[in-house]
């Protein structure tokens, strides 16, 4: 970082003056211009006006970055990049084995796809995909703000010594109703902590622990971390729709997710054990909405929103048969080994899929899956 600053210092004095001016006048989101120290990119999601949230588990922080990519695109072109891992490896000048795609997110305004990549040496890289073109997104001298994921217990300790050995892992982030939502796990308490952080960032963040009845486990289970989530509205009420390892699908009323609160969710589906959910999105075809969910050991599931809305039950008894399912009905799509997915527009999604021939392709689904 020092090197970069010195290089910038050698630049034109006029520019420096401009940069200093920018720094002193935060914009509407409280951004300042500078170079965020991002140590890892575990999860991505977009907020308003092309603001990209970057979940950095290694720093136990989330960064909000102005991508300045906010030109509305009403008619998104499908994205298709075959062998994307090989192309990323070449762009980074390394071998495919050294490249891991951590997350993808579609900018809902410009419809450009952003892709978080981690090099095996630990360097995080952010790429932007427009059509079949892939470019690196510079995170130097960008308008940004940051929020640390605080831990209440640790804050109580007044004599913290140096860097905490606490290790956080961010499993998913989302943005809804002006709030950044973060699910994660630390290397200490095995707990399901869910944070709701108002944006623009302030000192406020609500941390609640979520309890679910996991029918595959036959007991109330407070200890499972959410793997992926989205938000939805059912009969005028807003809900967090979350999924966990062994694949229960659970609804939590958003207005109950408050600081320090312990909230019990309503399990509406058991989608089979021996599996972990990866990503979920809501899509629309005509007047019908659908939940699409990618999985580690099962194909992509499709749930009709109407079925979800109509389901009044709460699963409280164990699923008798191993790997069996219960609750809300769903369809297994002929789409396997999907590693990432995000919504491109109302009826299409961008899919990162390991094909049966071993290729890793990024492509855009049509509404035929709905």
């Amino acid at each position, binding site marked *: 970082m020092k*090197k970069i600053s010195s*290089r910038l210092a050698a630049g034109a004095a006029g520019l420096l003056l401009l940069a200093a001016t920018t720094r002193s006048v935060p914009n509407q989101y409280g951004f300042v211009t500078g170079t965020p120290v991002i140590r*890892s990119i*575990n999860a991505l999601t977009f907020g308003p006006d092309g603001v990209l949230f970057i979940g950095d*588990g*290694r*720093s136990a922080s989330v960064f909000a970055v102005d991508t300045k990519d906010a030109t509305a695109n009403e008619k998104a072109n499908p994205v298709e990049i075959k062998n994307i891992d090989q*192309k990323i*490896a*070449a*762009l*980074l*000048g*390394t*071998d495919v084995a*050294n490249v*891991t795609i*951590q997350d993808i997110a579609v900018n809902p305004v410009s419809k450009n796809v952003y892709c978080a990549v*981690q090099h*095996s*040496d*630990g*360097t995080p*890289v952010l790429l932007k995909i427009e059509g079949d073109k892939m*470019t*690196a997104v510079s995170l130097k001298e960008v308008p940004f703000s940051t929020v640390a994921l605080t831990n*209440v*217990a*640790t804050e*109580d*300790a*007044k*004599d*913290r*010594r140096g*860097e905490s*050995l*606490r*290790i956080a*892992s*961010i499993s998913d982030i989302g943005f809804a109703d002006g709030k950044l939502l973060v699910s994660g*796990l630390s*290397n*200490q*308490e*095995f707990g399901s902590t869910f944070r709701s952080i108002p944006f623009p960032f302030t000192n406020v963040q609500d941390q609640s622990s979520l309890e679910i009845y*996991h029918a595959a*486990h*036959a*007991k*109330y*289970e407070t*200890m499972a971390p959410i793997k992926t989530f989205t938000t939805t509205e059912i009969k005028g009420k807003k809900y967090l729709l979350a999924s966990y*390892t*062994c694949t229960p699908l659970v609804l939590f009323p958003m207005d109950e997710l408050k600081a320090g609160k312990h909230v019990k969710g309503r399990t509406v589906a058991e989608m089979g*054990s021996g599996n*972990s959910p990866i990503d979920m999105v809501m899509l629309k075809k005509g007047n019908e909405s659908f939940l699409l969910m990618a999985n580690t050991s099962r194909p992509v599931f499709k749930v009709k929103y109407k079925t979800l809305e109509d389901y009044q039950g709460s699963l409280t008894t*164990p*699923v008798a048969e*191993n790997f069996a399912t219960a609750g809300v009905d769903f369809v297994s799509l002929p789409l396997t080994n999907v590693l990432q997915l995000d919504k491109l527009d109302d009826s299409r999604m961008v899919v990162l899929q390991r094909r049966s021939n071993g290729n890793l392709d990024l492509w855009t689904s049509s509404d035929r899956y709905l």
Partner: protein
Amino acid sequence: MYSLIFFCTCLSACRSGEETGITISWNGKRAIGITVPDRLVGEVNADSIAQLLTIRLAGQEIAMAGDYQQTHRGIRFEPLVPFTRGRRYTIWLRNRPLCELAIPALEADDKPRLLAIYPSPDTLPANLLKVYFRFSRPMRESQSARYVALLNANGDTLRDVFLDLQPELWNADRTMLTLWLDPGRIKRDLQPNKRLGAPLQLGDHYQLVVSANWPDALGATLASSTTKLFRVSQRDSLSPDPDRWTIHLPKPETTQPLSLAFGEPLDYYLLTETLHVFSDGAAVPGTWQIGRNELVSTFTPTARWTAGQYRLRIENRLEDRSGNNLNRLFDRDLTKTQRPTDGKSYRDVVFTIGN
């Protein structure tokens, strides 16, 4: 950071036999940039450097992403991620290969080491929850499923023992990894527990094996494989109880350590941050050291102890090796009455250092 003069292989476009004078910039063991001298490139407009000069992994058509900068020594290229050790790169000028450059591989004996596995004891409870691995330098992530194995006494590899977490739980510099034994298998009566049983069986012997093939961040593999042999003892179904700890007090006007003996091994990493010493409401500066088999912790103050009253503050989230903390059991029986708590996140033990 330092630079090495490097001579790359001249291709046809380069005058034969001439030293190219290309330099590689290093940050530790990472090659973070190269500088191509002006005489190789010729006159180039600063705005069009990236169009005229590109660096590609040998055999690839896609130019590497990175920053170009005109310096007094030539054009400097800093790739988005450091060059890969042991790989060759081609420098292209005006769409023609100018020369090839090799980034030297690491020395054959330049390897990372596994420094420790926690818990340290060779007898572990049947409901062991976490294992920590500490390495000598940053490792490659998302590899534990491939390189860590638990073997039973017959040498069979046991499946679905560790929780598959992505991303894995590494510390900031990727020298310490936390692996959870699948909590669903440890908690009694949960479906994975019923279907697969607990990962560890009372009285059995196991081998925790870390393969030497695990690569570090630079691609070098571990110097050797490591095997930790252990035997499994009874489930630990009791919370750690500070009332049963033994405190050895130091003498005033010395920097002798305050020593705590727990009577049972506790969780290594929670021990590093949940114990504190206070005097008159202020934290006493000093360092904690965890003793053998995580049975003991000692606190050595920076300044000498003065006679008087102190408080040892123990955060309630301190756990034993089975995830039982001071307030609750990891696998508690919901039908049994729970120990009442005072709502605090810590408890204090008062001790006096006398004359």
